[in-house]
């Protein structure tokens, strides 16, 4: 990167018409790239999740408290679920943000809808993260021998 090449026509047009102005920063570009990178990771994470929970062994019939305890005893599955939670929530939130921008035309409606969206996202991400890290297989009410 030696030569600094000016953006096309950046000299000739009145700055007020220059849409390449930095006002929005690179946020939208980062968001665009994030949608694609997280998408690739989510294919692996979600397909793995569905395979392990629905296709193997007794599938849906096997899912109960003990099943979750068995999975989260393994740090690999804890990390798996954590990554899936964060990536899917951020990817989904950014996708829904785009959709709100597309359909909600009144500024006040946009602000409200996005406010509700961001609050919901924060609540779910924090809750889901706490659940993974504070999980206790011997929580009150579990009477299996290992917990006595």
């Amino acid at each position, binding site marked *: 990167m030696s030569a600094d090449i000016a953006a096309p026509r950046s000299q000739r047009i009145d700055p007020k018409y220059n849409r390449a102005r930095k006002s929005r920063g690179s946020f939208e570009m980062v968001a665009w790239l994030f949608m*694609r990178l997280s*998408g*690739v990771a*989510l*294919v692996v994470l*979600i*397909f793995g999740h*569905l395979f392990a929970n*629905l*296709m193997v062994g*007794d*599938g*849906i*019939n096997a*899912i*109960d*408290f*003990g099943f*979750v*305890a068995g999975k989260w005893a393994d740090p690999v599955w804890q990390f798996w679920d954590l990554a899936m*939670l964060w990536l*899917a*929530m951020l990817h*989904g*939130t950014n*996708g*829904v943000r785009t*959709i709100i921008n597309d359909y909600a035309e009144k500024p006040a409606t946009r602000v409200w809808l996005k406010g509700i969206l961001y609050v*919901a996202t924060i609540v*779910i991400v924090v*809750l*889901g993260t*706490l*659940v993974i890290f*504070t*999980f*206790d297989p011997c*929580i*009150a*009410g*579990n009477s299996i021998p290992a917990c006595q």
Partner: protein
Amino acid sequence: MSKASSGTLYRGHEGMWSWVGHRVTGVVIFLFLLVHVLDTSLVRVSPGAYDAVMSTYKNPLMALGETALVAAIVFHAFNGLRLILVDFWKSGTKYHRQMLWGVLALWVITMVAFSIRHLSLAFGGH
């Protein structure tokens, strides 16, 4: 858009329907995920509470619902990979339509395999 624009490569063609499908499935998965994290959080309440809610998922009607959800995810995932290829692969824009047929073919194959396994587990019952 006026009628004069009916010559577009996009509006009303496969490209538009795949976009509508991608959008609708994205929102559906997002809404499911909000509820899914809430129901999983019951493992912090008590084993009984979690098992009680999980047992409501284990019936034939819910099995069909789960299959529909997985169908939405598999479509969104494969079509999402196609969108990524359109953006990053140098011949991506040239083959976007062929890739859409590829997405639909893979989607059907995956869903046939998934449904056979999941529905026979769910309807085989315990």
